[in-house]
Structure formats: structure tokens, C-alpha cells
């Protein structure tokens, strides 16, 4: 049983780390500011999600009772992450940052 929990915890940590890494790769590789905004949304959802599941499992197993503090992290993150993404996008439009030429549609004047 111990090794099963350890296996699950390790799997969730690896999953979270993989998505955080891919999000960072996106941040480095994508060509314009608006596209780069999409990288961190992955890191802050499944990236953190995987870590949180691992932490929840590990500490619940250690204490032999359900530990739910981690749920709060998800809650606060889900409330704050979209706001910062929104502010970044608005600031980018206000400064008229260049977008990739083949982008369909256009940003609004701020």
C-alpha cells in the first residue's frame, strides 16, 4: 500500500512538473506577447494541479486523515490568475505591442 501511494504521488509530481515545463517552453518559444500569455495559463492550471494532488495525497497519507488546505491554493489561484492575465493583455493593447502578422482580428484601442 505504501508503495502504491508513493507511486501515485511521484506520478502527480512528474505530471505537474511536465506541464510547468511545457508552459515555460511556450513562454520562451512563442513569437509575440499575446501568444506568450498562453504559456503560464497551463503552468497555473494543470502544473499546479498536479503538484497539489501530490501534496494532498502525501500529507493525507502521512497524517492518515484528509488534509484539504491545498484546496485553498487552487481556489485563490483560480480567482487571481485570470485577473492578472486580463491586466497583462489590457496593458499590452494599451501600449500597442506588435502581434504576429497573420493574427486574425485586431486588438481594441485602449
Amino acid at each position, binding site marked *: 500500500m505504501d508503495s502504491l501511494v508513493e507511486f501515485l504521488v511521484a506520478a502527480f509530481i512528474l505530471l505537474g512538473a511536465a*506541464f510547468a515545463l*511545457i*508552459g515555460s*517552453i*511556450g513562454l520562451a*518559444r*512563442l*513569437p*509575440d506577447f*499575446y*501568444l506568450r*500569455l*498562453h*504559456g503560464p*495559463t*497551463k503552468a497555473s*492550471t*494543470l502544473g499546479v*494541479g498536479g503538484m497539489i494532488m501530490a501534496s494532498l495525497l502525501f500529507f493525507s497519507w502521512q497524517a492518515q486523515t484528509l488534509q*484539504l*488546505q491545498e*484546496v*485553498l491554493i487552487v*481556489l485563490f489561484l*483560480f*480567482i487571481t*490568475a*485570470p*485577473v492578472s*492575465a*486580463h491586466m497583462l*493583455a*489590457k496593458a499590452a*493593447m494599451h501600449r500597442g505591442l506588435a*502581434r*504576429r502578422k*497573420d*493574427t*486574425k*482580428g*485586431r*486588438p*481594441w484601442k*485602449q
Partner: protein
Amino acid sequence: MIRILPFPLLSLLLWLAWMLLNGFSWGHALLGLLLALLLPLATRPFWPNVPRLRNLPRLLRFLALVHWDIVVANLTVALLILRSPRRLRPAFVELPLALTDDFAITVLMSTISLTPGTVSADVSEDRATLLIHVLDVDDPEALVAEIKQRYERPLKEIFEC
């Protein structure tokens, strides 16, 4: 009733958050209860139009749907990022809003931003249009129709009528 407990659900959430942060003890249960009663009263002026939750089961179904969509969209976007960025088809898409309540619009914008692949960039002054930036889209109209059908309709049922 309204004056003592303007937001019963908010009070409940505050109390639960306090208990999760501090672990259970009777002292904290009492202190949390006090905060859960006082904080909504103190922040009452921040809510000129009180959002009303009309359909709790629908909200729970909506939350489950959003979580599932986040997982699926994460996988799709991971593949998009690892492929050549030159093959992406980015777009700014305008979404005409059917929602009118500010809080419901905020929830819709957050949902759009949390789902990888789409970020909500702006909402128009008159709250009639939402500007969304999409990482890779083939048919913008199909995307708008999907967001309206998948997220906006349930939100309308949950917060409006």
C-alpha cells in the same frame, strides 16, 4: 435577515476557508464565525448589484465541466506549443455577450482565461462584447458558438434566470 446576512454563501465560504487554514478547533470555529459574519457586512458597499445564485446543482455541474475542459485543453495546448510555433493560427475574436450581470461576466471571463488556449483580453464599455485572444483557431465563429453554448448558457441559468 438581509441586513445580518447579506451573502449567506459568501459567509459559508469564508468560514470554510478559515477552518481549512487553521485546522479545526472550537476557538477557531468561533473566531471564523465572527469573521464570516463581519466581513460580508464590511464589504457590502463593494457590491452595488448583488449577484444571486439561482441554480446550485447547475453550478456544480458547470464546475465539473470546467475542470474537465481545463485538463483536455492543457493536453491540446501542450501539443501546440511543442510543435512548430509557425503553424499556430492566432486570432483576436469578438464574442457578443448575452450575459448582463457583471459578476456573471467576470466568471465567464475567468473561465475563458483559465482554459488554456484562450485568454479574455477585454470587455467593452457597454458590456456587450468580449475580446478574446486565441492561440490557434481554425474557425473563429465556431469557437464563439462553442463558448456561448458551453459556458455562457449555463452561467445565464446559474446567475440570471
